[in-house]
């Protein structure tokens, strides 16, 4: 079946839908920034976008290439320093939702953005932590968006940069993390939500045209599938038009 949308498009659109009802979102660059800006254009026009450069209430008319683009500062309600954005705004839980991505994720939605291979002599040195660990600590909930394959959805992370649910139930409380953790993990194949008992990310929705077997093949752990598995709603014309307008007007490649 030929669909009129790409796997990246349905991933981004599904992520933007998760922001309905949120007041504010702490946004990473790349896929999270596209999804958050899409949400603001579509169904969350009052959504306050917060970037770690200190721009609060940014209203970019084109997608920024970096988290410190002039466009974000020019359109913000207020611009604060980096210590202030983390200490006064993020840490107390003032920002409702954090949106993150990563190079590797495990079954408990922990993220690696630091190295592939060993820390001392990595095969690939990735950028590192940035703001993600504190976003994942402090935001009442987080949304993770990343493309899925056996290389990215792994049994064991090469490095634990950002805690999702740690080693499972109760870990966040033991670690003193006030936020509830990842409410959803969205890939280009489906949508995963934490099991109420175990906190393991279970497949709860599958994108149109994708089989459960495809998702299993692209998952490095023994995937559990929800008994109430549904199909992700197809992107509407409005969602697709809006996303394509954003991407076309962008100065950015959709990097992750």
């Amino acid at each position: 079946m030929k669909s009129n949308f790409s796997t990246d498009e349905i991933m981004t659109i599904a992520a933007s839908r998760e922001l309905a009802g949120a007041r504010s979102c702490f946004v990473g660059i790349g896929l999270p920034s596209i999804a958050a800006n899409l949400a603001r254009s579509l169904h969350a026009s009052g959504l306050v976008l917060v970037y770690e450069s200190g721009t609060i209430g940014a209203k970019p008319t084109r997608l920024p290439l970096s988290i410190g683009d002039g466009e974000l500062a020019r359109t913000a309600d207020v611009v604060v320093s980096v210590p202030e954005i983390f200490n006064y705004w993020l840490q107390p839980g003032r920002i409702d939702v954090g949106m993150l991505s990563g190079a590797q994720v495990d079954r408990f939605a922990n993220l690696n953005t630091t190295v592939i291979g060993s820390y001392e002599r990595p095969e690939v040195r990735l950028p590192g932590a940035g703001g993600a660990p504190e976003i994942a600590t402090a935001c009442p909930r987080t949304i993770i968006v990343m493309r899925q394959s056996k290389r990215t959805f792994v049994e064991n992370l090469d490095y634990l940069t950002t805690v999702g649910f740690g080693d499972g139930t109760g870990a966040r409380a033991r670690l003193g993390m006030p936020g509830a953790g990842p409410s959803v993990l969205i890939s280009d194949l489906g949508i995963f939500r934490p099991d109420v008992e175990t906190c393991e990310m279970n497949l709860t929705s599958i994108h149109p045209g994708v089989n459960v077997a495809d998702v299993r093949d692209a998952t490095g752990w023994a995937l559990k599938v929800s008994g109430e598995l549904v199909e992700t709603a197809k992107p509407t014309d409005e969602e697709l038009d809006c996303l394509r307008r954003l991407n076309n007007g962008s100065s950015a490649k959709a990097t992750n």
Partner: protein
Amino acid sequence: MTEFLSLESAIAANVHDGDVVALEGFTHLIPFAAGHEIIRQRRRDLTLVRLTPDLICDQLIGAGCARKMVFSWGGNPGVGSLHRFRDAVEHDWPQAIELDEHTHAGLANRFVAGAAGLPFAVLRAYAGTDVALQSSTIASVTCPFTGEVLAAVAALRPDVTVIHAQQADREGNVRLWGITGVQKESVLAASRAVVTVEEIVDDFSDDRNAVVLPSWTVTAVAHVPGGCYPSYASGYSERDNDYYEAWDELSRDRTVFEDWLEHEVYDLGSV
């Protein structure tokens, strides 16, 4: 009191081999011209400190100036990897580099403690991560009032902090605005501060809430218009996103990078 110097003299007087050098500016106001001057003066064994190493540290690392990097996010924003940084970490080229790696909040708070004259700063961070295990400047502390266990990060006091700002007045007071990152904290935490500026003005406007570094907190000011290119100075220039995208290709290959270094840095001489 601030001395007004050429960039060459300001770097020669304030950045020495083996120094801990913070070069701050969060995407905005990155002191590239000063970084290139450090390369031209062939400084060695520096500990570079920057939340986001960005292209400026990629260039300094590739040029062999750095022994150690203290940082929290080492990518080319929106583009991908820093290839010179990666080559140093993955293959020791042009030399091995030691890392002290943090989160943005952790490193920002190390500057806050340095500026405040305290031995450490407290934040709710790092619990359960591998980041905490790798760094000797991250520990935990128990709150004496509530018993909550929190992260402690050691104060950071650079030998010198180098920043770029929009304006200085003729007394050497410095004003910057827009995205102001950790510039204030990194200057106040350092023993010396070098500031390059877009413009020297007779008098600031009435706005006293823009970040002002009084002249007595600044060691040297150098007038270097465009000194933050290819980053930008709000009110003066736009970020050259094409340069950041082109750097991805240019910096992948050692020979191409060395050719760039020869023609775009060494051959240009001091500003």
